[in-house]
């Protein structure tokens, strides 16, 4: 890339930058040139010199001018009396006054209840992922910070499974992301097969993976095996599509292992040297034939066999595992099976396989090291479900399901303040049973947030809101995979005046200087990034600006070279020093050491009585090109591409229900209801429907109870809280039951949230109804008496 990041061209200033958030996105860091005229962002053009994006941009960055110049942006701090929550009675205030209020409220809680009574609610993907934990720990001194899906169901579960079993950061597809020459580097090999498992990267660019590099690889000959309840566009072009029943991924994994180990298709040399527990696993999976899996998963045994053979006998091949592993109770086991498949085939850290990395390098480490500012006695009070889920409590965050219980019951202590860190969880993104959260959060003495637009969450619940700057108006660093497997660092360069808006790190610093100055010695974002960069490199943020991106070095087969363990010894950073397909530590957590299948808590087989009333399996969360979860609904050219929330339903099912494409339909189960528009398509099987998430309607009345229509098309109203796995992770966002009927009124699901009555049962158990004997591999069978 050319040196320097700012040039003038006629009456425009051109600023080169990398993208992140807000507006929301994962840390993909695409390269772009921002055109600024008279201080205003007038155009965005992709930067052809960027090694990963190569000039390409997705619609969200191409609509950045609409975001930056939007009349509804929050541009200054605002306060509102607690009694006026839900009313549009915001009053503009200065930053000084805003900080005075925040400081005073935090001190009140510190003095009267202790810092642990403050809770920080974090969303996904945005820069918030890096800077929310430090705000909790090093500003508010509370250990209670969490990503807010039930069972922390996004990324966390996969990274924890990878930590426990691989002792490495996030295992990522090798798409030549570390090479300047990319696919042409002589060391690189194109993967022969890529398994896309519960993942649709074209739309989601997950965790900073560049989605359309799959098209680059398709053009270079990679074939696809897609394991997904949806026929995605990539699945329509795949050699094998395993269209499984949602939530049965572990059964697919076990059957694939049955084929690979049973037919002796695995890499013996790699297994002997580097994999622990292969013999035990081989013995264990003898019983899990593809025919066994066919009954459970609805995938023909031949397809499972064919896919397993193709994958195992074509080296190198690779796997990408997606959010579907996180959004189910049995996901940790599905993940264990998936890692086992990749490991026994010998595809770990080889060209064209799966790239491994040392976890938590660079800023990923700083974010969790800030926990030192939490008093150890306070830290010990973290609400992390230690008793029920000791494995979860070894992780960095509090337990969201248990926080909800604490909010409701004030046990073990009351939560008195919540800070929404650039997140909009009432919209169907994070919170399951959102009305329940709404009622619980209304009990707090004080709620605050920072964000870019007035969201239903802020309108409903907050007393103070701070204005967040878009990435075009800030200096920052983007690092794909948040430091867990980071192929480059990119400079985010301020192109326009932020006005009174501040970036996440600036808000952390300015709040931190009031509440805990010792943790926040830096004056500017640039100083902060210099300090972070210097922990690893001898250059500065200004050098990164000039360079554009800094591609990290990577070598293959790091386990042979002592590059995956802090002690520099060869092997993996696990207790056995090997990849553990049989865990040496799960037993201590009360978890079975080998992967097993557990029927979803609510399914045609585990709850057959409910299935009579709610015959369809509901999956949610598939992404769209033109939004990031609940974001971008107010951006005209993006909303125009997808104006309504869509329920995808098979043509035969739709015909039987008298539903036509475009009809409004009501999706219901025993927890709640939601209205979406029918999209009649063969994308889903006859017994499955897929509902879009993240919907609210910024154009509608924002005041309570409507709250920008947040209750109308809120698919998370059908998802229960606290149906998690033994490790404390995973929840059934992608697997409950429902029925669908045609309605004429798009507001048919609207309901006053205060009328919501939460179910009696708030425990981590399943919906037991005596079906344990019928399904032989239920959780209960491995945990008798629980």
């Amino acid at each position, binding site marked *: 890339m050319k040196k320097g990041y700012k040039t003038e061209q006629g009456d425009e200033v051109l600023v080169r930058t990398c993208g992140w958030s807000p507006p929301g996105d994962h840390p993909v860091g695409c390269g772009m040139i921002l055109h600024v005229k008279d201080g205003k962002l007038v*155009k*965005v*053009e*992709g930067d*052809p010199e960027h090694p990963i994006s190569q*000039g*390409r*941009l*997705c*619609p969200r960055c*191409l*609509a950045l*001018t609409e975001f930056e110049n939007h009349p509804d942006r929050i541009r200054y701090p605002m306060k509102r009396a607690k009694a006026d929550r839900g009313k549009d009675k915001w009053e503009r205030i200065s930053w000084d006054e805003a900080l005075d209020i925040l400081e005073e409220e935090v001190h009140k809680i510190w003095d009267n209840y202790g810092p642990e009574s403050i809770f920080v609610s974090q969303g996904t993907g945005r820069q918030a992922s890096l800077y929310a934990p430090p705000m909790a720990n090093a500003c508010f001194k509370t250990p209670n910070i969490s990503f807010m899906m039930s069972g922390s169901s996004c990324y966390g579960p996969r990274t924890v499974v990878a930590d426990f079993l691989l002792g490495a950061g996030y295992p990522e597809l090798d798409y030549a992301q570390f090479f300047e020459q990319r696919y042409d580097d002589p060391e690189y090999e194109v993967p022969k097969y890529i398994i896309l498992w519960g993942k649709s990267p*074209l*739309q989601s660019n997950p965790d900073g993976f560049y*989605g*359309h590099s799959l*098209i*680059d690889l*398709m*053009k270079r000959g990679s074939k696809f095996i897609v394991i997904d309840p949806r*026929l995605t*566009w990539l*699945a*329509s*072009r795949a050699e094998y599509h395993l269209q499984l029943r949602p939530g049965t991924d572990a059964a697919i994994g076990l059957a694939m292992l049955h084929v690979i180990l049973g037919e002796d298709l695995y890499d013996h040399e790699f297994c002997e040297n580097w994999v622990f527990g292969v013999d035990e696993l081989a013995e264990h999976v003898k019983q899990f034939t593809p025919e066994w899996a066919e009954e459970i998963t609805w995938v023909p045994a031949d397809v499972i066999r064919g896919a397993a053979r193709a994958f195992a006998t074509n080296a190198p091949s690779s796997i990408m595992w997606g959010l579907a592993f996180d959004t189910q109770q049995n996901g940790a086991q599905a993940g264990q099976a998936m890692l086992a498949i990749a490991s026994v085939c010998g595809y770990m850290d080889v060209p064209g396989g799966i790239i491994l990395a040392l976890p938590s390098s660079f800023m990923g480490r700083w974010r969790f090291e800030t926990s030192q500012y939490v008093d150890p006695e306070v830290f010990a009070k973290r609400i992390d479900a230690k008793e029920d889920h000791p494995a979860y409590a070894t992780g960095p965050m509090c337990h969201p399901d248990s926080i909800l219980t604490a909010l409701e019951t004030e046990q073990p202590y009351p939560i008195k303040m919540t800070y929404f860190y650039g997140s909009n969880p009432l919209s169907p993104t994070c919170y399951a049973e959102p009305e329940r959260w709404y009622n619980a959060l209304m009990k707090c003495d004080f709620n605050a947030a920072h964000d870019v637009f007035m969201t239903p969450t802020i309108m409903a619940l907050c007393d103070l809101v701070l204005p967040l700057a878009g990435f075009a108006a800030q200096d920052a660093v983007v690092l794909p995979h948040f430091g867990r497997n980071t192929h480059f660092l990119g400079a985010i360069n301020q192109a326009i005046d932020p006005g009174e808006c501040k970036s996440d790190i600036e808000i952390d610093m300015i709040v931190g200087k009031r509440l805990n100055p010792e943790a926040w010695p830096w004056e500017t974002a640039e100083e902060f990034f210099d300090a972070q960069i210097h922990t690893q490199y001898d250059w500065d943020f200004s050098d990164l600006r000039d360079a554009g991106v800094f591609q990290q070095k990577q070598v293959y087969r790091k386990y042979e070279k002592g590059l995956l363990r802090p002690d520099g010894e060869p092997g993996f950073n696990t207790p056995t020093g090997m990849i553990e397909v049989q865990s040496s530590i799960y037993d201590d957590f009360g978890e079975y050491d080998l992967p097993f299948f557990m029927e979803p808590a609510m399914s045609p087989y585990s709850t057959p009585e409910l299935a009579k009333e709610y015959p369809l399996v509901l999956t949610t969360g598939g992404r769209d*090109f*033109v939004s990031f979860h609940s974001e971008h609904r107010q951006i*005209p*050219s*993006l909303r*125009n*591409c997808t104006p309504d929330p869509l329920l995808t339903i098979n043509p035969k099912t739709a015909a039987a229900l008298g539903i036509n494409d475009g009809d409004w339909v009501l999706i219901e189960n025993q927890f709640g209801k939601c209205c979406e528009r029918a999209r009649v*398509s*063969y*994308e889903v099987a006859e017994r499955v429907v897929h509902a879009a998430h993240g919907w609210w309607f910024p154009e509608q009345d924002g005041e309570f109870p409507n709250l920008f229509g947040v209750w109308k098309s809120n698919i998370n109203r059908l998802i229960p809280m606290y149906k998690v796995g033994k490790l404390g992770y995973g929840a059934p966002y992608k697997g409950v039951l429902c029925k669908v009927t045609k309605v004429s009124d798009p507001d048919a699901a609207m309901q006053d949230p205060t009328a919501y009555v939460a179910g009696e049962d708030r425990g981590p158990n399943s919906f037991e109804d005596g079906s344990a004997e019928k399904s032989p591999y239920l959780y209960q069978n491995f945990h008798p008496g629980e």
Partner: protein
Amino acid sequence: MTQYAMIIDYKYCTGCHTCEVACRQEKQIESQEEWGIKFAEFGPMRQGDEWYWDYVPVPSNLCDLCVDRIEEGKKPACAHHCLAKCMEVVSVDEVPARLTDLGAGGVAVFMP
């Protein structure tokens, strides 16, 4: 004056909407009722024993093939940003050779 044509290797088109939004920005088409390029979706349907599912972007009467950009040595805005790198605008003379290179399976040529 050179005559240009747009070639879309639509077998790789993922329906990402990038061309639509890029064109909107480039040509400053603010009304959501109008567009410079828009794709049609065919499928997913079983045809023969395969899935058929294609997106085919079609430039409208508002498309001028970004001749200004081409003359400055740049790609048209849609092609520049296309996530699948499956669009190009070439002079009409070059079309047959490009079609031969791209091969069958879903390629379209437009002269809007």
